[in-house]
Protein backbone atom coordinates (compact mmCIF):
# COMPACT_ATOMS: atom_id res chain seq x y z
CA UNK A 1 0.00 0.00 0.00
CA UNK A 2 2.87 2.42 0.77
CA UNK A 3 4.31 1.65 -2.66
CA UNK A 4 0.90 2.09 -4.31
CA UNK A 5 0.58 5.50 -2.65
CA UNK A 6 4.19 6.29 -3.65
CA UNK A 7 3.29 5.43 -7.26
CA UNK A 8 0.61 8.10 -7.13
CA UNK A 9 2.58 10.81 -5.33
CA UNK A 10 6.32 10.46 -5.85
CA UNK A 11 6.92 8.43 -8.98
CA UNK A 12 7.39 5.38 -6.76
CA UNK A 13 10.25 6.99 -4.77
CA UNK A 14 10.33 6.43 -1.00
CA UNK A 15 12.39 7.77 1.89
CA UNK A 16 13.52 5.87 5.05
CA UNK A 17 12.19 7.38 8.30
CA UNK A 18 13.61 7.43 11.86
CA UNK A 19 10.36 7.69 13.83
CA UNK A 20 6.63 7.54 13.27
CA UNK A 21 3.72 9.07 15.17
CA UNK A 22 0.24 7.84 14.31
CA UNK A 23 -3.11 9.60 14.52
CA UNK A 24 -6.56 8.10 14.26
CA UNK A 25 -6.38 6.15 17.51
CA UNK A 26 -9.47 7.58 19.23
CA UNK A 27 -12.51 5.32 18.97
CA UNK A 28 -14.61 8.44 18.70
CA UNK A 29 -12.88 9.69 15.53
CA UNK A 30 -12.08 6.44 13.68
CA UNK A 31 -15.19 4.53 14.71
CA UNK A 32 -15.94 0.87 14.18
CA UNK A 33 -14.35 0.59 10.74
CA UNK A 34 -11.14 2.23 11.86
CA UNK A 35 -10.92 -0.35 14.64
CA UNK A 36 -11.55 -3.13 12.16
CA UNK A 37 -8.78 -1.80 9.95
CA UNK A 38 -6.28 -1.77 12.86
CA UNK A 39 -7.37 -5.24 14.01
CA UNK A 40 -7.03 -6.52 10.46
CA UNK A 41 -3.45 -5.22 10.27
CA UNK A 42 -2.57 -6.58 13.73
CA UNK A 43 -4.04 -10.02 13.02
CA UNK A 44 -2.04 -10.26 9.80
CA UNK A 45 1.11 -10.19 11.98
CA UNK A 46 2.22 -6.65 11.06
CA UNK A 47 4.76 -5.00 13.41
CA UNK A 48 6.34 -1.57 13.32
CA UNK A 49 10.02 -1.49 12.38
CA UNK A 50 10.86 1.94 13.88
CA UNK A 51 10.03 3.81 17.14
CA UNK A 52 6.35 4.67 16.82
CA UNK A 53 4.14 6.67 19.18
CA UNK A 54 0.40 7.35 19.20
CA UNK A 55 -2.05 10.25 19.42
CA UNK A 56 -4.59 10.85 22.25
CA UNK A 57 -7.54 8.52 22.80
CA UNK A 58 -11.24 8.98 23.54
CA UNK A 59 -10.67 8.17 27.21
CA UNK A 60 -8.15 9.81 29.51
CA UNK A 61 -5.76 7.74 31.57
CA UNK A 62 -7.29 8.52 34.97
CA UNK A 63 -10.93 8.09 33.91
CA UNK A 64 -11.94 11.72 34.53
CA UNK A 65 -13.81 11.93 31.21
CA UNK A 66 -16.59 9.42 31.60
CA UNK A 67 -17.79 7.97 28.33
CA UNK A 68 -20.19 5.13 27.56
CA UNK A 69 -19.29 1.47 27.62
CA UNK A 70 -19.17 1.12 23.83
CA UNK A 71 -16.42 3.76 23.59
CA UNK A 72 -14.45 2.14 26.43
CA UNK A 73 -14.63 -1.22 24.70
CA UNK A 74 -13.73 0.23 21.27
CA UNK A 75 -10.79 2.13 22.76
CA UNK A 76 -9.43 -0.96 24.46
CA UNK A 77 -9.63 -2.90 21.16
CA UNK A 78 -7.61 -0.11 19.50
CA UNK A 79 -4.97 -0.15 22.25
CA UNK A 80 -4.71 -3.92 22.04
CA UNK A 81 -4.26 -3.86 18.26
CA UNK A 82 -1.63 -1.10 18.43
CA UNK A 83 0.26 -2.74 21.27
CA UNK A 84 0.43 -6.03 19.41
CA UNK A 85 1.95 -4.18 16.46
CA UNK A 86 4.66 -2.76 18.73
CA UNK A 87 3.39 0.84 18.91
CA UNK A 88 4.43 2.79 22.04
CA UNK A 89 1.01 3.92 23.19
CA UNK A 90 1.92 7.33 24.57
CA UNK A 91 -1.46 8.98 23.87
CA UNK A 92 -0.07 12.43 23.20
CA UNK A 93 -0.53 15.00 20.44
CA UNK A 94 2.75 16.65 21.46
CA UNK A 95 5.32 13.85 20.94
CA UNK A 96 7.94 16.52 20.17
CA UNK A 97 8.00 17.11 23.92
CA UNK A 98 10.10 13.97 24.44
CA UNK A 99 11.19 12.92 20.95
CA UNK A 100 13.90 15.50 20.28
CA UNK A 101 14.09 15.17 16.52
CA UNK A 102 17.23 16.59 14.91
CA UNK A 103 17.31 19.01 11.96
CA UNK A 104 17.24 17.42 8.50
CA UNK A 105 16.18 13.97 9.67
CA UNK A 106 13.14 12.19 8.17
CA UNK A 107 9.99 11.25 10.10
CA UNK A 108 6.54 9.85 9.32
CA UNK A 109 4.19 11.74 11.60
CA UNK A 110 0.47 12.00 11.32
CA UNK A 111 -0.68 14.60 13.83
CA UNK A 112 -0.86 17.90 12.01
CA UNK A 113 0.18 20.17 14.90
CA UNK A 114 3.16 17.91 15.68
CA UNK A 115 4.29 17.73 12.05
CA UNK A 116 4.09 21.50 11.75
CA UNK A 117 5.95 21.93 15.03
CA UNK A 118 8.97 19.79 14.06
CA UNK A 119 9.08 21.13 10.50
CA UNK A 120 8.86 24.74 11.62
CA UNK A 121 10.78 24.89 14.88
CA UNK A 122 13.33 22.11 14.31
CA UNK A 123 13.61 21.75 10.55
CA UNK A 124 13.02 18.02 11.05
CA UNK A 125 11.30 16.77 7.94
CA UNK A 126 7.88 15.20 7.88
CA UNK A 127 5.06 15.47 5.40
CA UNK A 128 1.47 15.16 6.60
CA UNK A 129 1.28 11.38 6.63
CA UNK A 130 -2.37 10.60 7.25
CA UNK A 131 -3.01 8.17 10.16
CA UNK A 132 -3.06 4.97 8.12
CA UNK A 133 -0.07 5.97 5.98
CA UNK A 134 2.08 6.78 9.03
CA UNK A 135 1.21 3.36 10.48
CA UNK A 136 1.87 1.58 7.18
CA UNK A 137 5.12 3.58 6.89
CA UNK A 138 6.08 2.60 10.46
CA UNK A 139 5.66 -1.03 9.46
CA UNK A 140 7.54 -0.63 6.16
CA UNK A 141 10.19 1.76 7.59
CA UNK A 142 9.71 4.17 4.68
CA UNK A 143 7.12 6.56 3.22
CA UNK A 144 6.61 8.13 -0.22
CA UNK A 145 9.25 10.76 -0.95
CA UNK A 146 6.85 13.68 -1.31
CA UNK A 147 7.79 17.33 -1.76
CA UNK A 148 8.35 18.12 1.93
CA UNK A 149 11.06 15.43 2.04
CA UNK A 150 13.06 17.43 -0.52
CA UNK A 151 14.74 20.82 -0.10
CA UNK A 152 13.12 22.02 -3.30
CA UNK A 153 9.66 21.21 -1.96
CA UNK A 154 10.36 23.28 1.15
CA UNK A 155 11.11 26.45 -0.79
CA UNK A 156 9.19 29.39 0.74
CA UNK A 157 6.45 30.66 -1.58
CA UNK A 158 4.78 33.44 0.42
CA UNK A 159 6.23 36.37 2.34
CA UNK A 160 4.33 37.09 5.54
CA UNK A 161 4.95 40.12 7.68
CA UNK A 162 3.64 40.08 11.24
CA UNK A 163 3.59 43.53 12.80
CA UNK A 164 2.66 42.70 16.36
CA UNK A 165 4.63 42.29 19.58
CA UNK A 166 5.35 38.94 21.23
CA UNK A 167 2.56 36.51 20.39
CA UNK A 168 0.83 34.79 23.31
CA UNK A 169 -0.94 31.46 22.71
CA UNK A 170 -4.21 32.95 21.44
CA UNK A 171 -2.52 35.53 19.18
CA UNK A 172 -0.13 32.89 17.84
CA UNK A 173 -3.13 30.70 17.02
CA UNK A 174 -4.91 33.55 15.27
CA UNK A 175 -1.76 34.36 13.24
CA UNK A 176 -1.52 30.68 12.22
CA UNK A 177 -5.20 30.59 11.26
CA UNK A 178 -4.98 33.85 9.28
CA UNK A 179 -1.91 32.72 7.35
CA UNK A 180 -3.67 29.41 6.70
CA UNK A 181 -6.86 31.04 5.47
CA UNK A 182 -5.15 33.67 3.33
CA UNK A 183 -2.46 31.53 1.70
CA UNK A 184 -4.04 28.06 1.82
CA UNK A 185 -1.09 26.14 0.38
CA UNK A 186 2.63 26.55 -0.21
CA UNK A 187 5.31 27.48 2.33
CA UNK A 188 5.03 30.78 4.24
CA UNK A 189 8.17 32.69 5.22
CA UNK A 190 7.30 34.70 8.32
CA UNK A 191 9.10 37.85 9.30
CA UNK A 192 8.57 39.68 12.58
CA UNK A 193 6.92 36.90 14.56
CA UNK A 194 8.16 36.40 18.11
CA UNK A 195 6.53 33.64 20.12
CA UNK A 196 6.10 34.41 23.81
CA UNK A 197 6.49 30.85 25.07
CA UNK A 198 6.37 27.15 24.22
CA UNK A 199 2.57 27.12 24.32
CA UNK A 200 2.48 29.86 21.68
CA UNK A 201 4.64 27.80 19.34
CA UNK A 202 2.29 24.86 19.81
CA UNK A 203 -0.83 26.95 19.20
CA UNK A 204 0.69 28.49 16.07
CA UNK A 205 1.61 25.08 14.65
CA UNK A 206 -1.83 23.67 15.44
CA UNK A 207 -3.75 26.60 13.94
CA UNK A 208 -1.70 26.86 10.73
CA UNK A 209 -2.30 23.19 9.95
CA UNK A 210 -5.96 23.22 11.01
CA UNK A 211 -6.94 26.21 8.87
CA UNK A 212 -4.99 25.13 5.76
CA UNK A 213 -3.25 22.22 4.09
CA UNK A 214 0.15 23.61 5.17
CA UNK A 215 2.40 21.87 7.71
CA UNK A 216 5.59 23.88 7.36
CA UNK A 217 6.45 27.54 7.78
CA UNK A 218 9.84 29.19 7.99
CA UNK A 219 9.99 31.62 10.91
CA UNK A 220 12.84 34.09 10.53
CA UNK A 221 15.27 33.71 13.40
CA UNK A 222 13.52 30.62 14.80
CA UNK A 223 13.53 27.88 12.15
CA UNK A 224 16.95 26.20 11.92
CA UNK A 225 18.54 26.96 8.50
CA UNK A 226 16.14 29.89 7.92
CA UNK A 227 18.84 31.83 6.06
CA UNK A 228 19.17 29.04 3.53
CA UNK A 229 15.39 28.97 3.09
CA UNK A 230 15.38 32.73 2.51
CA UNK A 231 17.98 32.31 -0.26
CA UNK A 232 15.83 29.61 -1.85
CA UNK A 233 12.60 31.61 -1.56
CA UNK A 234 10.44 32.24 -4.61
CA UNK A 235 7.72 34.55 -3.32
CA UNK A 236 4.46 34.50 -5.26
CA UNK A 237 2.25 35.86 -2.46
CA UNK A 238 2.80 38.63 0.02
CA UNK A 239 0.61 39.34 3.03
CA UNK A 240 0.68 41.38 6.22
CA UNK A 241 -0.96 40.60 9.51
CA UNK A 242 -1.78 43.46 11.83
CA UNK A 243 -3.09 43.91 15.36
CA UNK A 244 -6.52 44.79 13.87
CA UNK A 245 -6.66 41.43 12.07
CA UNK A 246 -6.15 39.71 15.40
CA UNK A 247 -8.65 41.90 17.21
CA UNK A 248 -11.36 40.88 14.75
CA UNK A 249 -11.03 37.29 16.05
CA UNK A 250 -11.14 38.21 19.72
CA UNK A 251 -14.58 39.68 20.31
CA UNK A 252 -16.53 39.96 23.53
CA UNK A 253 -17.40 36.46 24.48
CA UNK A 254 -20.54 34.95 25.91
CA UNK A 255 -20.37 33.21 29.27
CA UNK A 256 -19.11 29.65 28.93
CA UNK A 257 -20.04 26.74 31.16
CA UNK A 258 -16.42 25.50 31.17
CA UNK A 259 -12.94 26.71 30.29
CA UNK A 260 -10.60 24.45 28.33
CA UNK A 261 -6.81 24.76 27.98
CA UNK A 262 -4.50 22.23 26.34
CA UNK A 263 -5.13 21.74 22.63
CA UNK A 264 -2.42 20.82 21.70
CA UNK A 265 -1.55 19.37 25.10
CA UNK A 266 -0.42 22.02 27.59
CA UNK A 267 3.28 21.99 28.44
CA UNK A 268 4.51 21.82 32.04
CA UNK A 269 5.02 25.57 32.32
CA UNK A 270 1.46 26.38 31.25
CA UNK A 271 -0.04 23.89 33.69
CA UNK A 272 2.09 25.24 36.54
CA UNK A 273 1.12 28.85 35.72
CA UNK A 274 -2.57 28.04 35.91
CA UNK A 275 -2.10 25.99 39.08
CA UNK A 276 -0.26 28.91 40.72
CA UNK A 277 -3.01 31.35 39.74
CA UNK A 278 -5.75 29.11 41.06
CA UNK A 279 -3.91 28.44 44.32
CA UNK A 280 -3.70 32.22 44.77
CA UNK A 281 -7.34 32.96 43.95
CA UNK A 282 -9.12 29.89 45.28
CA UNK A 283 -11.70 27.60 43.67
CA UNK A 284 -13.10 28.66 40.29
CA UNK A 285 -16.85 29.08 39.75
CA UNK A 286 -16.81 27.18 36.46
CA UNK A 287 -14.69 24.07 35.88
CA UNK A 288 -11.34 24.52 34.15
CA UNK A 289 -10.32 21.49 32.08
CA UNK A 290 -6.63 21.11 31.18
CA UNK A 291 -5.37 18.31 28.96
CA UNK A 292 -1.69 17.44 29.04
CA UNK A 293 0.60 14.59 28.05
CA UNK A 294 0.93 11.50 30.25
CA UNK A 295 4.59 12.49 30.77
CA UNK A 296 3.73 15.91 32.24
CA UNK A 297 0.79 14.46 34.18
CA UNK A 298 3.01 11.94 35.92
CA UNK A 299 5.40 14.68 37.00
CA UNK A 300 2.66 16.73 38.67
CA UNK A 301 0.33 14.04 39.95
CA UNK A 302 0.29 15.44 43.49
CA UNK A 303 -0.69 18.89 42.19
CA UNK A 304 -3.43 17.36 40.07
CA UNK A 305 -5.04 15.96 43.20
CA UNK A 306 -4.61 19.23 45.06
CA UNK A 307 -6.21 21.47 42.41
CA UNK A 308 -9.09 19.10 41.74
CA UNK A 309 -10.47 20.60 44.95
CA UNK A 310 -10.25 24.03 43.26
CA UNK A 311 -12.51 22.92 40.38
CA UNK A 312 -9.49 22.49 38.05
CA UNK A 313 -9.58 19.17 36.23
CA UNK A 314 -6.22 18.14 34.79
CA UNK A 315 -6.26 15.00 32.66
CA UNK A 316 -4.00 13.26 30.18
CA UNK A 317 -4.01 10.92 27.23
CA UNK A 318 -7.24 12.38 25.80
CA UNK A 319 -8.56 15.82 24.90
CA UNK A 320 -11.91 17.54 24.46
CA UNK A 321 -11.53 17.38 20.66
CA UNK A 322 -11.42 13.58 20.48
CA UNK A 323 -13.57 12.64 23.49
CA UNK A 324 -17.38 12.44 23.29
CA UNK A 325 -17.44 13.66 26.92
CA UNK A 326 -17.39 17.17 25.40
CA UNK A 327 -21.03 16.82 24.29
CA UNK A 328 -22.34 17.50 27.78
CA UNK A 329 -21.23 21.15 27.50
CA UNK A 330 -23.06 24.08 25.93
CA UNK A 331 -20.34 26.72 25.48
CA UNK A 332 -16.59 26.18 25.94
CA UNK A 333 -14.10 29.04 26.30
CA UNK A 334 -10.57 28.28 25.11
CA UNK A 335 -7.35 29.86 23.86
CA UNK A 336 -6.98 27.19 21.18
CA UNK A 337 -7.90 27.97 17.59
CA UNK A 338 -7.70 24.28 16.77
CA UNK A 339 -10.28 23.41 19.44
CA UNK A 340 -12.39 26.30 18.16
CA UNK A 341 -12.39 24.72 14.70
CA UNK A 342 -13.05 21.07 15.58
CA UNK A 343 -15.27 21.02 18.68
CA UNK A 344 -18.30 22.65 17.00
CA UNK A 345 -17.91 20.38 13.96
CA UNK A 346 -17.41 17.15 15.89
CA UNK A 347 -19.62 17.71 18.92
CA UNK A 348 -22.03 20.52 18.06
CA UNK A 349 -20.81 22.53 21.08
CA UNK A 350 -20.15 26.28 20.77
CA UNK A 351 -16.61 27.47 21.38
CA UNK A 352 -15.50 31.02 22.15
CA UNK A 353 -11.92 32.28 21.98
CA UNK A 354 -10.20 34.08 24.85
CA UNK A 355 -6.69 34.94 25.95
CA UNK A 356 -5.54 32.66 28.75
CA UNK A 357 -5.95 35.39 31.43
CA UNK A 358 -9.42 36.23 30.10
CA UNK A 359 -10.34 32.52 30.02
CA UNK A 360 -9.42 32.30 33.70
CA UNK A 361 -11.41 35.46 34.43
CA UNK A 362 -14.41 33.76 32.83
CA UNK A 363 -13.86 30.77 35.10
CA UNK A 364 -14.17 33.08 38.11
CA UNK A 365 -17.01 35.24 36.70
Amino acid sequence: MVLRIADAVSGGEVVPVETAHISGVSYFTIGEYGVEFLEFLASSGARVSIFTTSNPAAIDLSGLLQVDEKVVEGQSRISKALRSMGVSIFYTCAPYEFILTRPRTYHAWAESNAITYINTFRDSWSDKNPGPLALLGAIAGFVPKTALYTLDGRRPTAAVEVNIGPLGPLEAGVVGALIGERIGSGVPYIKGAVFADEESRREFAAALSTYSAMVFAVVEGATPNWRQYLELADFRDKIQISAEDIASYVRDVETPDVVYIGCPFADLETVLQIVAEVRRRGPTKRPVYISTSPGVYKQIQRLVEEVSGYNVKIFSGACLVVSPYTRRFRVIATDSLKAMFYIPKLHGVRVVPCRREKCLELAYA
Partner: protein
Amino acid sequence: MLKPIVRGRGRAASRVVKITTPVSLLGDLDPERGTLAGVDVSGKIVALPYVKGSTVGPYVLWGAARRGKAPLAIVAQKPDLMLISACVLAGVPLFQGDLEEECINIDLESGVYDKC
Protein backbone atom coordinates in the same frame (compact mmCIF):
# COMPACT_ATOMS: atom_id res chain seq x y z
CA MET B 1 -9.50 14.11 -19.87
CA LEU B 2 -8.76 13.98 -16.16
CA LYS B 3 -5.33 12.93 -14.89
CA PRO B 4 -5.68 9.60 -13.06
CA ILE B 5 -3.98 9.63 -9.62
CA VAL B 6 -5.51 6.52 -8.06
CA ARG B 7 -6.89 4.43 -10.92
CA GLY B 8 -10.19 2.60 -10.70
CA ARG B 9 -11.73 0.01 -13.02
CA GLY B 10 -14.51 0.06 -15.60
CA ARG B 11 -16.79 2.81 -16.84
CA ALA B 12 -19.59 4.71 -15.13
CA ALA B 13 -22.15 7.41 -15.81
CA SER B 14 -22.82 9.83 -12.98
CA ARG B 15 -23.84 13.28 -12.00
CA VAL B 16 -21.03 15.51 -10.79
CA VAL B 17 -21.47 17.17 -7.40
CA LYS B 18 -19.31 20.28 -7.22
CA ILE B 19 -18.07 21.57 -3.89
CA THR B 20 -16.36 24.93 -4.23
CA THR B 21 -14.68 25.29 -0.82
CA PRO B 22 -11.89 23.10 0.64
CA VAL B 23 -13.30 20.38 2.92
CA SER B 24 -12.06 18.39 5.92
CA LEU B 25 -12.84 14.66 5.65
CA LEU B 26 -13.05 14.60 9.47
CA GLY B 27 -16.00 16.78 10.37
CA ASP B 28 -17.34 17.56 6.89
CA LEU B 29 -17.80 13.96 5.66
CA ASP B 30 -20.62 12.04 7.33
CA PRO B 31 -19.86 8.35 6.68
CA GLU B 32 -23.30 7.25 7.92
CA ARG B 33 -25.26 9.38 5.48
CA GLY B 34 -22.71 9.81 2.70
CA THR B 35 -22.81 13.59 2.79
CA LEU B 36 -19.89 15.95 2.32
CA ALA B 37 -20.33 19.52 3.61
CA GLY B 38 -24.04 18.70 3.84
CA VAL B 39 -24.35 17.55 0.21
CA ASP B 40 -25.21 13.95 -0.76
CA VAL B 41 -22.13 12.50 -2.48
CA SER B 42 -22.77 8.77 -2.04
CA GLY B 43 -22.20 6.98 -5.35
CA LYS B 44 -21.59 10.26 -7.16
CA ILE B 45 -18.54 11.95 -8.66
CA VAL B 46 -17.37 14.76 -6.39
CA ALA B 47 -15.36 17.69 -7.73
CA LEU B 48 -13.59 19.74 -5.07
CA PRO B 49 -10.62 22.11 -4.83
CA TYR B 50 -8.60 20.24 -2.16
CA VAL B 51 -8.91 18.74 1.32
CA LYS B 52 -7.63 20.25 4.53
CA GLY B 53 -7.56 19.50 8.23
CA SER B 54 -7.24 16.38 10.35
CA THR B 55 -5.10 13.46 9.31
CA VAL B 56 -7.83 11.09 10.56
CA GLY B 57 -9.58 11.80 7.24
CA PRO B 58 -8.67 8.53 5.47
CA TYR B 59 -10.35 6.33 8.09
CA VAL B 60 -13.51 8.38 7.67
CA LEU B 61 -13.51 7.84 3.89
CA TRP B 62 -12.67 4.17 4.50
CA GLY B 63 -15.61 4.02 6.92
CA ALA B 64 -17.90 5.58 4.31
CA ALA B 65 -16.71 3.03 1.72
CA ARG B 66 -17.40 0.11 4.10
CA ARG B 67 -20.91 1.46 4.56
CA GLY B 68 -21.40 1.79 0.80
CA LYS B 69 -21.64 5.56 1.21
CA ALA B 70 -18.42 6.69 -0.48
CA PRO B 71 -18.36 8.79 -3.63
CA LEU B 72 -18.00 6.89 -6.93
CA ALA B 73 -14.87 8.96 -7.64
CA ILE B 74 -13.22 12.16 -6.46
CA VAL B 75 -11.87 14.85 -8.76
CA ALA B 76 -9.59 17.33 -7.00
CA GLN B 77 -7.82 20.38 -8.36
CA LYS B 78 -4.96 19.80 -5.93
CA PRO B 79 -4.89 16.19 -4.69
CA ASP B 80 -2.53 15.83 -1.72
CA LEU B 81 -1.01 12.95 0.19
CA MET B 82 -3.92 12.71 2.59
CA LEU B 83 -6.55 12.53 -0.13
CA ILE B 84 -4.47 10.01 -2.09
CA SER B 85 -3.97 7.81 1.01
CA ALA B 86 -7.67 8.05 1.75
CA CYS B 87 -8.56 6.99 -1.79
CA VAL B 88 -6.06 4.08 -1.87
CA LEU B 89 -7.36 2.86 1.49
CA ALA B 90 -11.03 3.28 0.58
CA GLY B 91 -10.71 2.09 -3.02
CA VAL B 92 -12.16 5.32 -4.41
CA PRO B 93 -10.70 6.39 -7.81
CA LEU B 94 -9.07 9.81 -7.70
CA PHE B 95 -8.40 12.20 -10.56
CA GLN B 96 -6.75 15.58 -10.88
CA GLY B 97 -8.74 18.25 -12.66
CA ASP B 98 -11.98 20.16 -12.47
CA LEU B 99 -15.56 19.40 -13.52
CA GLU B 100 -18.83 21.31 -13.70
CA GLU B 101 -22.15 20.10 -12.29
CA GLU B 102 -23.30 17.88 -15.15
CA CYS B 103 -23.74 14.21 -16.01
CA ILE B 104 -20.65 12.51 -17.44
CA ASN B 105 -19.60 9.08 -18.74
CA ILE B 106 -16.16 8.34 -17.37
CA ASP B 107 -13.52 5.65 -17.78
CA LEU B 108 -12.40 5.14 -14.19
CA GLU B 109 -8.99 3.84 -15.26
CA SER B 110 -7.90 6.44 -17.80
CA GLY B 111 -9.93 9.48 -16.72
CA VAL B 112 -11.30 9.97 -20.23
CA TYR B 113 -14.88 11.33 -20.09
CA ASP B 114 -17.69 12.85 -22.13
CA LYS B 115 -21.09 14.34 -21.37
CA CYS B 116 -24.04 11.95 -20.91
